[in-house]
């Protein structure tokens, strides 16, 4: 028997999948919270206050958001570093891989490559997004966010982010299933085909949801061009407070 | 020329060769396996349906033992087999299967409880006992009294070969693949290795060995329509023949398998019929019971093939684009059974015919399948003429098959013979006789001779085309030396082959590609194949009787009076037009089972006067023993064989019903 091997390859493989899974679950929840804007500015305001801890502590602590941002950043960093191991490491590997994909035109290999490509983009897009979240956690709200999207032209970043992150996440979930629990038995092919359909449905759903939200933020931001910097005051608070 | 020294050289990497190598290696001898192809690609992998061994576990096998397996095999051989060797074989077969079971073959097992089977076109419910649960099960095969073909779905040979190869790898036995033996090195009395061509770069090298074993399988490719792999060109038997000393036995005994698909000639297993499949004609009529009321579709292969051709000749064949054929119907077995136990069959039908055997009929016609003949050996697997030369498996004529082999007995023979021959070679290497002193001059001389032969082909000739001549040989054999033989056609074949042999010396290569050069390979193999073809055709012409698979329309009776013997072919003069034939008498007075009717096929045969004499002798001996003697004592009285077995293989085989 050869000598004992390091347990780390196993752990890293698991960690890569787990971090990916957490990030996907995060991004999907994120989409629901973010799209609260579709239900109105008040709803989005409540959601953002909730994440600043107001319902629990009586007043908002934007640093909580920074904390979450940093956690996500760490997760993304871990996930990216682990994933990088699997990317073509040199030009020879890159060439061989392209040759292979060009000849075989195999859907699932192409899906993986889509993850590589989107992952590479996300490597730049996510930090750009997280930087503002971490450094300006208080600037999340119906007007603050919309101003950033429109007046500060962040919609370009978000649009790219939207397309790449959902492709990455949906494909990632399908591949995660195949990696750890591939279907077997007589219906294996059918089950896999269904999983793929589910993957596309999820991808379309979140892209549509995300686009609708983004367009809403853009609309609010556009309408708010003249009063950039003003913070949103929810109707209820306005009535009670002042 | 590079010279490689080893104790044991095994030519052929199939089941027989690798088992022999493992046997020798376990006895402490260095062994090298030579193979045309990677060992796991050998033709053994194509054995589908099963391996005969009288385990007697499942219901259909209950009561089975060596005695019944022996009788089935001898009847199957049409009394052409060496009965002592058949005894050795049937005795070792259960051990072989149990050894393979321990080594990892996933044999199908008995499932206790009731299940439905198909017999004679009808569904029947049977119940397997709890006592047998989990033991190796078996399926029905042609020409057998009991269900005896142990199987792994219909990939039996594949599973066995992979397990065997893995054991050989575990034992550290090197397989030198993509290498081909061109000639045996010998001094006229003793074989001491082979001159070998590397099929990747074309270089020649010499392997010098104390013991050399030929395990290269059959020579089906001398026929146009054959179920054999395309590497089955009989080169092992051919180089033995080319020594001019070693003899080949019963080369005219060629088996045609009833169910090869049309037109590709790919085999679908006998298991199809064993599991209940039927043969139908153009009218959808099940015709076998008309000819063979006892065994029907499950008579021996020679009989079924003959009946099929007879039925086609009578105008009942299905006319198709590729000539006439009949139908194999396994639809009645049901989807579950087919997808579980006949999945290779389903795959072959899907890919090569575009049909699904669950709902469609399979077009079949008999095709060349097996060579009963091969390098004649004694009971320990050694050539009686050339010391140090051994043979095992289909390449050998150890002679358990005589003139017709039973389905499942070949794959069993490979392993059993491998066990025996591995041991024999080890004994030989250990003995004083095995010590080898050889001069490099002799090795060099053989090397130069082969180099010269290759150069002659590569540089000379007068325009003959190797591929074209090969096709002509194959056509000649399929058309004239097939299932139904006749003196006129055989004469024609002998003459045509002689002409082709002459023409084959005038081959001109169109390609001078470096390395293997496939055209050169085709050319030198053709010259050797023609000699094997001639041994077959000439042997068939001379044998003026019908026995087993050798059927002479002009001499339709089995003639024990004149032909109860084994043909021995040799080729002493390299340039001779024909082989030299000799005959080895089969002594009825030493037989445990004297000749009679097989239980299927034609009933009329010309009996030998000794038959009755021997039968009376047997009756008397058994009467003298009394009723208390067990079956071992009775057998020993008639024809002792235990002393012929390797010492470690002499124990009785335990069975479920044994009284302890």
């Amino acid at each position: 028997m050869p000598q004992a091997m390091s347990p780390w390859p196993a752990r890293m493989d698991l960690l890569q999948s787990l971090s990916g899974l957490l990030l996907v679950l995060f991004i999907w929840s994120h989409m629901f919270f973010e799209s609260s804007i579709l239900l109105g500015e008040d709803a989005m305001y409540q959601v953002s206050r909730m994440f600043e801890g107001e319902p629990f502590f009586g007043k908002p602590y934007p640093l909580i958001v920074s904390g979450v941002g940093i956690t996500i950043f760490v997760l993304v960093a871990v996930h990216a570093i682990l994933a990088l191991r699997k990317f073509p490491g040199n030009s020879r590997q890159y060439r061989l891989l392209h040759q292979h994909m060009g000849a075989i035109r195999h859907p699932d290999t192409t899906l993986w490559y889509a993850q590589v490509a989107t992952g590479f983009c996300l490597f730049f897009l996510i930090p750009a997004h997280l930087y503002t979240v971490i450094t300006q956690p208080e600037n999340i709200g119906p007007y603050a966010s919309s101003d950033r999207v429109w007046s500060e032209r962040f919609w370009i970043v978000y649009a790219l982010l939207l397309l790449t992150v959902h492709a990455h996440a949906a494909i990632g979930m399908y591949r995660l299933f195949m990696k750890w629990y591939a279907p077997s038995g007589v219906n294996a092919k059918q089950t896999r085909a269904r999983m793929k359909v589910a993957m596309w449905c999820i991808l379309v759903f979140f892209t549509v949801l995300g686009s609708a939200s983004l367009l809403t933020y853009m609309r609010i931001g556009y309408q708010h061009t003249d009063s950039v910097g003003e913070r949103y005051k929810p109707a209820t608070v306005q009535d009670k407070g002042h | 020329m590079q010279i490689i020294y080893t104790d044991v050289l095994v030519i052929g990497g199939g089941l027989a060769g690798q088992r022999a190598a493992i046997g020798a290696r376990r006895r402490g001898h260095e062994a090298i396996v030579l193979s045309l192809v990677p060992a796991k690609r050998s033709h053994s992998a194509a054995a589908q349906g099963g391996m005969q061994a009288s385990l007697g576990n499942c219901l259909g096998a209950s009561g089975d033992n060596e005695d019944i397996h022996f009788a089935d095999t001898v009847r199957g051989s049409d009394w052409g087999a060496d009965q002592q060797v058949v005894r050795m074989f049937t005795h070792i077969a259960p051990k072989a299967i149990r050894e393979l079971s321990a080594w990892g073959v996933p044999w199908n097992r008995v499932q206790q409880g009731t299940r439905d089977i198909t017999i004679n076109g009808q569904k029947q419910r049977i119940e397997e006992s709890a006592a047998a649960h989990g033991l190796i099960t078996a399926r029905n095969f042609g020409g057998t009294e009991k269900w005896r073909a142990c199987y792994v779905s219909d990939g039996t040979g594949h599973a066995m070969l992979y397990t065997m190869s893995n054991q050989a790898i575990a034992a550290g036995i090197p397989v030198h693949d993509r290498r081909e033996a061109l000639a045996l090195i010998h001094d006229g009395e003793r074989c001491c290795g082979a001159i070998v061509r590397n099929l990747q770069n074309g270089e020649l090298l010499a392997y010098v060995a104390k013991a050399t074993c030929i395990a290269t399988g059959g020579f089906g490719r001398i026929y146009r329509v054959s179920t054999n792999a395309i590497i089955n060109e009989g080169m092992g038997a051919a180089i033995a023949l080319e020594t001019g000393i070693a003899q080949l036995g019963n080369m005219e005994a060629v088996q045609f398998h009833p169910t090869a698909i049309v037109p590709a000639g790919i085999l679908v297993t006998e298991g199809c019929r064993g599991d209940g499949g039927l043969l139908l004609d153009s009218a959808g009529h099940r015709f076998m019971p008309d000819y063979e009321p006892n065994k029907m579709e499950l008579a021996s292969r020679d009989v079924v093939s003959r009946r099929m051709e007879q039925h086609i000749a009578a105008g009942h064949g299905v006319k198709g684009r590729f000539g006439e054929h009949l139908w194999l119907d396994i639809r009645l077995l049901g989807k579950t059974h087919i997808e579980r136990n006949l999945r290779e069959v389903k795959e072959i039908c899907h890919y090569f015919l575009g049909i699904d055997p669950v709902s469609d009929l399979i077009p079949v016609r008999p095709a060349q399948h097996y060579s009963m003949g091969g390098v004649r050996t004694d009971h320990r697997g050694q050539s009686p003429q050339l010391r140090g030369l051994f043979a095992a498996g289909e390449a050998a004529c150890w002679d358990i098959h005589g003139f017709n082999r039973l389905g499942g007995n070949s794959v069993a023979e490979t392993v059993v013979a491998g066990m025996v021959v591995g041991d024999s070679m080890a004994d030989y290497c250990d003995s004083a006789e095995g010590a080898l002193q050889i001069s490099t001059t002799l090795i060099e001389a053989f090397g130069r001779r082969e180099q010269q032969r290759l150069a002659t082909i590569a540089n000379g000739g007068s325009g003959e085309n190797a591929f074209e001549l090969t096709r002509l040989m194959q056509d000649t054999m399929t058309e004239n030396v097939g299932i139904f033989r006749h003196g006129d056609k055989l004469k024609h074949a002998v003459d045509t082959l002689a002409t082709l042999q002459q023409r084959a010396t005038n081959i001109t290569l169109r390609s001078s590609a470096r390395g293997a050069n496939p055209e050169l390979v085709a050319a030198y193999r053709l010259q050797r194949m023609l000699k094997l073809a001639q041994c077959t055709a000439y042997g068939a012409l001379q044998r003026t009787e019908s026995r087993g698979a050798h059927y002479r329309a002009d001499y339709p009776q089995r003639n024990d009076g004149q032909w109860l013997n084994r043909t021995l072919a040799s080729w002493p003069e390299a340039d001779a037009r024909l082989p030299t034939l000799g005959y080895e008498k089969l002594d009825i007075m030493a037989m445990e089972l004297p000749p009679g009717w097989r239980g299927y096929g034609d009933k009329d045969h010309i009996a030998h006067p000794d038959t009755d004499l021997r039968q009376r002798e047997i009756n008397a001996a058994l009467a003298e023993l009394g009723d208390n003697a067990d079956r071992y004592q009775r057998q020993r009285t008639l024809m002792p064989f235990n002393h012929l077995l390797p010492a470690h293989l002499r124990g009785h085989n335990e069975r479920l019903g044994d009284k302890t």
Partner: protein
Amino acid sequence: MNLIATEEGPRTLQISVLRHNPQDTESTPHWQTFELEEAQSMTLFIALNEIRQTMEPSLQFDFVCRAGICGSCGMLVNGRPGLACRTLTRNLPDKITLAPLPGFELIGDLSVNTGKWMRGMSEHLETWIHQHNLEQTDIDRLEERMEPELAEKIYELERCIECGCCIAACGTARMREDFIGAAGLNQIARFRLDPRDERTDADFYTLVGDESGVFGCMTLLGCEDYCPKDLPLAAQIAFLRGRMVAASL
């Protein structure tokens, strides 16, 4: 894609073969195109033999059983790995490209040394039953019993014919030469399932618990999709991955 010859008569196939003879120092890889008339039930085995016999006698390729059983004839047919012997030309377009399986040592033209690769894999992974007293097995006695269902499950994995299609179809194997691929991982799954093999998951971890083994697999699924024997490779690798992670924790 069902391009069966029409009533108009047989098609003329244009078969382009990627040729190279490493034995010849002057040879460089190049495409050579052959034209031949399609016959009924023609397979690539028949087509290639016809090309060799009538047009290009030096053309190298490997066929053994020509029945899809032995695994010798894996090659890239129009870029995709498959068994040439059972590929019917009627299922292919007029223009066919044939290239040797990548990932293996090239012997010449379409012939590659899959056998050497597979033997290396077997030696590395020790693909045989490990039992301490195997040589002492008493073969006169009744065999060890096994559940019928388990025997069938083992055979399901034993059906691999080592054709190399899974390796050629695998992007990981293309990038990493030491990757044992689905062929190797399937062997581990097979012996892990077999109660006759005494090795534990910890033992198997030492064989496949790294980037050249199960953790190198990126789930590209080329193996699963191009296995000519339809082996459940993805499921086996997924299962093995789980067991190996469990063994490491």
